[in-house]
């Protein structure tokens, strides 16, 4: 089976029904391990126990950008290849990405209060992530504003690709501008600066949250395919009703003209 075979929604539904329980089980196992390691990670010499917030803040922050990346690839699929599942994938990912971005902002804010002395600062990193969150909300509003899913898909795909410009801005904001937010400490040239006792739980949690996203995304894509089937059946139902009422009106007119003729 090639990747293009998955373009068939029925095939995708069949395959995802088999894969989904395994994905969910792997997510639960990894999250359990990650949470255990996070709970028993040592305190940081500067941050104290608040370093534990990092084990959920960093995976959510990483996913906020990763999900937009997934949506951007799906948008290319919509605009260039007209892949049948591309806009389904993009639409299904948006609310999940918005939720992860919200969590990144919230947990960052809860870490910032005891460490920086403030919940919020209008610095480049925080502001660019807030813009990303607003773009997720805008995209979800756009999907809801247009009735026809294929028309909405093209408009949303353009907006998603334009919004992708924000991803490198978020990533490099801490290098390009003088920000309160600390620079990269995991994904950086020269390797991670974190001690293994923090790095391992962080990576386990990052993989667990990524698996959580994949699981939720596949499930949400299944729902979206079913929603489109509901829509097409409802349109068939509406056209049948319209046709039968037209036929009914036509026969009534015919009868009326016969009656007039007879009179």
């Amino acid at each position, binding site marked *: 089976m090639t990747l293009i075979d998955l373009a068939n929604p029925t095939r995708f539904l069949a395959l995802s029904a088999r894969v989904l329980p395994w994905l969910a089980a792997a997510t639960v196992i990894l999250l359990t391990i990650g949470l255990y390691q996070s709970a028993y990670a040592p*305190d940081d010499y500067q941050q*104290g*126990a608040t370093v534990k*917030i990092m084990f*959920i803040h960093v995976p959510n922050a990483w996913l906020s950008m990763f999900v937009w990346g997934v949506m951007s690839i799906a948008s290319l699929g919509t605009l260039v290849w007209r892949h049948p599942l591309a806009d389904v994938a993009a639409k299904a990912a948006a*609310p999940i990405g918005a*939720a992860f971005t919200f969590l990144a902002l*919230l947990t960052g804010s809860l870490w910032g209060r005891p460490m920086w002395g403030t919940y919020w600062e209008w610095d480049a990193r925080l502001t660019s992530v807030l813009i990303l969150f607003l773009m997720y909300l805008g995209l979800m509003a756009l999907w809801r504003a247009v009735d026809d899913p294929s028309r909405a898909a093209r408009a949303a795909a353009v907006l998603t690709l334009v919004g992708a410009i924000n991803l490198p801005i978020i990533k490099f904001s801490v290098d390009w501008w003088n920000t309160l937010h600390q620079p990269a400490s995991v994904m950086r040239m020269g390797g991670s600066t974190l001690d293994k006792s923090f790095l391992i739980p962080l990576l386990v949690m990052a993989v667990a949250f990524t698996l959580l996203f994949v699981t939720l995304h596949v499930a949400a894509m299944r*729902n979206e395919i079913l929603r489109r089937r*509901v829509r097409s059946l409802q349109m068939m139902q509406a056209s049948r009703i319209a046709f039968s009422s037209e036929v009914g009106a036509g026969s009534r007119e015919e009868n009326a003209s016969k009656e007039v003729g007879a009179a």
Partner: protein
Amino acid sequence: MTMSLGPYASFIMTSYAAAAIVVAILIGWIVLDYRSQTRRLRDLERSGITRRSGRSAMDTSRTIT
């Protein structure tokens, strides 16, 4: 091994609780949405509206090769 959260325990607990609540809402929304879509499909098919192929809209029995 014991876990001590120190003077900022409320910030740490709130962060983990918020993550748990948001993830639970996402899971709940997806499960409820699935139930809603399958119920609507079943109702439509029961009222005689079927796909052009004649197959059930919930049919996922296509062979995977």
